[in-house]
């Protein structure tokens, strides 16, 4: 029996895996110690649990446990990684290269640093969502201290060529930072093979708890340091003070372990369902898949259904299916997704997009239901869309002088 509503917004957050919850439970009431308490068994127990989790987390990304700095999540990781490098390497230069489709936690951090004297280059992306490596190469300067490019995009799921990007950064003596929130736990990420120096990721996107994340900071070749953004007791090798969230970290560790062990099987199953969904929805006239399909996360599909508006579209089924739209009719600015716009999509296509984010618990039955609900709603709304009628009559919609409001 199909249980409603269906959750297809796994890029926003994921449900916690029951195995993760089970691992966390002893660390609330029973083993509640502070991992920094060095003089008694409560502290030792907590420290041991954190050490074990740190190993689990490190193993998922091919890192050394000492290279894992625990944070409150990826937004903090992005801030610490980028601001920390800017401060630590100030004598070396002030130039940072990033791209226009980054998460706001990266973009706004860069904007903040611009006010403090940083020079930031925002690379445009190509129509398929990937950056142009030649443009990156051309943007490198002697003062470039950091290249900050995301591993995989949250809206369209495209995977950037991180190996090539890190090689370019290295060649020019700059560090490579990546926001890998959407990639870690979903696809193989190896900090050494990928040449990553600093990487932010988070537990709740990989079936772990909210409020805990990590910043990978390379210790060898080169040894990287970031200036702490939170001062205090000198936790996490002095880079991030604050009492450790022991149950959260334990859950993060377990989530990382489960992701590592189940990744291959999960990916195979989920990508098949994603392809089924996408192939069925592509059958609808004037529907377009956004982002490079060959370099994309296995569980994401972003599709524009031209001539219908995304929020109106979601209303047709949002009591039964939870997903996201690139439209932002509710925002005061009425601006659609900046990521989709950065691909060169017209505002009309950006307003018409839906993001499907499948997950570990998505079933074929749910996908079949979704295909039908979305198809029916698109067809119904097109019947009441003046733009669809004009398109069918051969009117050039772009030639009309619209009154912008």
């Amino acid at each position, binding site marked *: 029996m199909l249980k409603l509503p269906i959750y297809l917004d796994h890029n926003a957050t994921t449900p916690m895996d029951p195995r993760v919850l089970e691992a966390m439970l002893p660390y609330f009431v029973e083993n509640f110690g502070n991992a920094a308490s060095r003089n008694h068994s409560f502290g030792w127990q907590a420290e041991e649990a954190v050490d074990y989790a740190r190993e689990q987390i490190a193993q998922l990304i091919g890192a050394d446990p000492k290279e894992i700095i625990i944070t409150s999540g990826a937004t903090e990781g992005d801030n610490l990684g980028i601001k920390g490098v800017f401060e630590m390497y100030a004598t070396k230069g002030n130039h940072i290269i990033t791209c226009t489709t980054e998460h706001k936690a990266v973009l706004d951090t860069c904007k903040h640093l611009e006010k403090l004297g940083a020079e930031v280059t925002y690379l445009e992306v190509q129509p398929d969502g990937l950056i142009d490596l030649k443009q990156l190469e051309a943007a490198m300067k002697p003062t470039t201290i950091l290249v900050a490019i995301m591993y995989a995009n949250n809206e369209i799921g495209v995977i950037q060529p991180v190996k090539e990007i890190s090689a370019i950064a290295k060649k020019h003596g700059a560090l490579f930072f990546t926001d890998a929130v959407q990639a870690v736990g979903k696809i193989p990420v190896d900090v050494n093979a990928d040449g990553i120096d600093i990487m932010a990721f988070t537990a709740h996107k990989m079936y772990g708890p909210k409020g805990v994340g990590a910043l990978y900071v390379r210790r060898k070749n080169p040894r990287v340091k970031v200036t702490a953004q939170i001062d205090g007791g000198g936790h996490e090798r002095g880079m991030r003070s604050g009492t450790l969230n022991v149950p959260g970290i334990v859950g993060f560790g377990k989530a990382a372990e489960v992701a590592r062990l189940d990744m291959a099987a999960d990916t195979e199953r989920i990508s098949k369902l994603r392809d089924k969904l996408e192939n069925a929805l592509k059958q609808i006239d004037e529907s377009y898949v956004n982002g490079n399909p060959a370099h994309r996360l296995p569980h994401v599909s972003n599709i524009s259904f031209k001539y219908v508006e995304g*929020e*109106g579209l979601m209303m047709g089924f949002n009591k039964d299916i939870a997903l996201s739209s690139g*439209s932002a009719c509710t*925002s005061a600015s009425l601006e659609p997704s900046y990521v989709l716009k950065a691909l060169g999509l*017209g*505002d009309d296509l950006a307003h018409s997009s839906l993001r499907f984010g499948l997950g570990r618990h998505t079933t074929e039955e749910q996908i079949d239901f979704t295909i039908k609900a979305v198809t029916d709603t698109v067809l119904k709304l097109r*019947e*009441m869309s*003046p733009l669809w009628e004009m398109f069918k009559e051969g009117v050039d919609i772009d030639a009309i002088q619209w009154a912008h*409001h």
Partner: protein
Amino acid sequence: MAYSDKVIDHYSNPKNVGTLDKASKSVGTGLVGAPECGDVMRLQIQVDEVTGIITDAKFKTFGCGSAIASSSLATEWLKGKSIDEAVTIDNMDLVEELNLPPVKIHCSVLAEDAIKSAINDYRVKNGLEELVFEERIH
């Protein structure tokens, strides 16, 4: 954000979706909004040339649920009104009836603009003076 029951009802069972012959002298057409802004409304009225009463109204809307509901409700209100009465329909009446939250007020403004634009189209076609409305910021 949750939609009001009335918005959901108009969205699920929109009233008067359709197209009137825009070339007809007795039909006024208003096309407002822009695809880039995420909403476009086309509202049409059929007017009895003798009485000036709106005998039919149709709409098609590209937009969110509130935009669809605003235009659906507007067509219902237009039917049976004279074009002089229709011009007094205020967007805040739509807001109140549909319980639109502040972020959706622009949908009702668009519907009011569509009504006025349809009436003016009819007036111009029939040799009546085009009404001038105050510019509003929305």
